[in-house]
């Protein structure tokens, strides 16, 4: 029985995730072919729960852009955008998308529809500048659904606090303002019961995502947060608010619980449990992970799986009796959590080190993303002052291979692992 389950359950998340991804892109290509317009959204506060109510195809330009890097054609897109006038020093995701739009939506995975509307938060300020480009290109409505974040480390407020309620009223008011805009764009009336349905799916996904992340506390770890985790993340974003997305994550929980019970880890012989802070190096995505796994390092968690899921890791559960107000509260808390894991992550990382039994922390700031990267050097300084744990700090990029030097990265990673090994030997010697 267990052997049978190993065959059917283990690895299912990766396989099904890839299938869903292909399905998603197939649907987008079909929509583009029929000249149906889409909602353009971002991973931190996508509002898919609400957009699904209006039957809008959902396009995540960040995911499209990173896919050009994974498929090693990002440089073509970046060059095209730079020829158009964009600076080498701005976000690579933005530039890849500009080139995608100039190419009529053509991407290696298919073709994306043009936007009918863009809906986005300010979790990343570049979202706002990015959407302004579509506003100019297509003249479509763009809606900043502004979600205030934490004002300082440890300053989160909660329901009942006057400052929280001020933020909640603002978010709720904006959701109520967005609904008629969506009705106008799509010609579809708002159906609150349909919203309840998508929120039910989102509740299920949030619960499961939180559980999947927690289950990786198992030893050995059940999935690599950098490689496997990114596949799960794609589903978490693209299928948010759908029955397929909720089912996928229920299956994923089942897979991880099974692996935990059976003591089945990743393919890596796990010697060191690592935490990843930053954004993956997509231009050499597989090789980047191998730099660590070849030396026995597995990533047991990452801030990326927190913020790039829009804070779904928090596991917020919507109150379906009061959908709009609860959506406002959930978005406020979840997107704030996503922002906290980028800006105020010292305590988050300290807790992760304990909860996941981490041996080291890998910081990977990137040129393209100032949201994630600006404070990482200082965060590392603060964390190292607080915790006795080795860390690695190396810069490259998520899109632009011109600033990715594999040889230099390997040297740094090798030296880091030598340090981890020495530390472990010393600890063994010091033990009575």
């Amino acid at each position, binding site marked *: 029985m267990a052997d049978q389950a190993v065959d059917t359950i283990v690895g299912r998340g990766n396989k099904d995730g890839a299938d869903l991804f292909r399905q998603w892109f197939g649907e987008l290509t079909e929509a583009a072919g029929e000249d149906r317009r889409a909602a353009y959204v971002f991973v931190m506060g996508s509002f898919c729960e609400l957009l699904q109510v209006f039957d809008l195809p959902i396009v995540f330009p960040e995911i499209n852009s990173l896919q050009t890097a994974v498929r090693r054609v990002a440089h073509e897109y970046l060059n095209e955008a730079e020829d158009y006038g964009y600076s080498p020093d701005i*976000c690579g995701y933005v530039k890849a998308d500009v080139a995608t739009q100039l190419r009529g939506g053509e991407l290696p995975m298919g073709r994306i529809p043009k936007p009918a509307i863009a809906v986005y938060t300010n979790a990343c300020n570049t979202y706002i500048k990015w959407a302004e480009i579509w506003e100019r290109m297509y003249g479509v409505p*763009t*809606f900043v659904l502004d979600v205030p974040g934490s004002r300082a480390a440890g300053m989160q407020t909660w329901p009942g606090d006057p400052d929280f309620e001020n933020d909640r009223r603002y978010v709720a008011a904006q959701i109520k303002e967005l609904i008629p805009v969506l009705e106008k764009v799509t010609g579809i009336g708002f159906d609150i019961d349909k919203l309840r349905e998508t929120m039910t799916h989102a509740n299920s996904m949030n619960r499961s995502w939180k559980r999947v992340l927690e289950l990786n506390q198992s030893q050995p770890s059940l999935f690599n947060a950098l490689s496997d985790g990114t596949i799960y993340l794609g589903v978490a974003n693209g299928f948010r608010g759908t029955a397929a997305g909720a089912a996928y994550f229920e299956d994923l929980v089942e897979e991880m619980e099974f692996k935990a019970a059976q003591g089945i880890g990743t393919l890596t012989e796990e010697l060191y449990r690592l935490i990843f802070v930053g954004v993956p190096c997509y231009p050499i995505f597989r090789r980047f992970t191998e730099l660590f796994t070849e030396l026995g390092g597995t990533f047991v968690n990452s801030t990326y799986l927190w913020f790039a899921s829009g804070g779904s890791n928090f596991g917020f559960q919507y109150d379906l009796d009061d959908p709009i107000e609860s959506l406002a509260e959930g978005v406020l808390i979840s997107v704030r959590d996503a922002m906290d894991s980028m800006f105020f992550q010292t305590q988050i990382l300290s807790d992760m080190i304990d909860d996941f039994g981490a041996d080291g922390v890998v910081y990977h700031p990137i040129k393209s993303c100032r949201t994630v990267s600006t404070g990482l050097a200082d965060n590392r300084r603060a964390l190292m002052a607080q915790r006795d744990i080795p860390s690695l700090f190396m810069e490259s990029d998520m899109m632009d291979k011109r600033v990715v030097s594999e040889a230099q990265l390997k040297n740094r990673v090798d030296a880091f692992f030598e340090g981890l090994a020495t530390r472990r030997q010393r600890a063994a010697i010091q033990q009575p």
Partner: protein
Amino acid sequence: MTIKATMDDGIATRVFPEWRGQPLDEILYHCRELAEDEDFPTVRRWREAGGKVVGHFQVYFPEEIAHAAGMLPFKLRGASVEATQADSRFGSYLCSILKTSLELALSGRVELEMFVTHPICDAARNLAAVWGRNFPYPCQILYLPQNANSPHAAEYLRGEYDRVRRVIEEIAGRQVTETDLQRSLGVFNENRALLRELYAIKRETPWLISAEDAYVLVAVGGMIPREEHNELLRTVLPLIRERSAKRQDRIRVVFEGGFCEQPPLDLIRAIGRSCYVVDDDLLIGLRWILEDVPLDGDPLLALATAYLESSSYSPVQHDLRKPKEAMLLKRIAASGAKAAIVTAAKMCEPGLEEQVAYTRALDEENVPYFVSEFEENMTSFDHLEIQLETFIENLLFE
């Protein structure tokens, strides 16, 4: 130097005595010296007199709230200093102003009781966390609304201002009443009116005031009490109008790109040598609100409403009513400029992104423009000046 004097307007401390009783050229000289002084002596004098300081990062901060608590709102706009300590707190691909602003604090050049930044860009928002890990005093983000088009935005911002007021009250050790706020609004209304007058002089008679002198007259406002700035401007503006400088045959330009990191004064001087800068977005945060804020009613709501409804524009505020390229064209038309200098600070994401929209709009409208990048710490301007002169000559002989 500590200067204390109780004046009728209630301000107990004046920190910039050098200009008083001086002829215009001397006053402007002292303003240039102060604007470029990396030790920020006026802030030090304020503290030596027992005052407290709220340091606020670019672009806009409701200074009236700090002012009403008797604190000095100090505009952190970087400086031409080497970021020897701050460099290790940041990654490689960042604008200079982030690093030098933190350097001012880490090196002890400026001491604060509170630091505030804003979600104007991805890098600036990170500053609250970085600052907070390095200093024990409150270091916070003031979440100015990025949905300026929401009918609820003003009410939300009123609540956010009230939150900041409560934090400031704790630091100041005193209550900030409606009367305090209304008095501060009055002081700042006068300041805004005086700055508008300064810019009217730039537009109407740019030969009477150089670009660099107009700039420093604004800049010193961010580092001295606003009453004192009002006194300075009240003294200087009539003297400028009385000048007998002759109009020269120079191209009238708008300078765009100085909303956050500031170009070095030498760069502004170099531009001013070739053309008349008749309008610009330099230190736009100090001139953000375009009209008097009403003094009746709820002062925080009035201030919040003015931020949204009676304000300028910049690449870091999204407002569907103010497409940036349309606003730039409007600025050019309103100032009678014939060309634009479209700059961005190096590594400034919003500035660099906006450059594309600006230049495309200028192309469409056939407005000549000169595109450049700058850094606050740059020291060589020869190349840029030659390029600019060539651009100007082309326009003059067209």
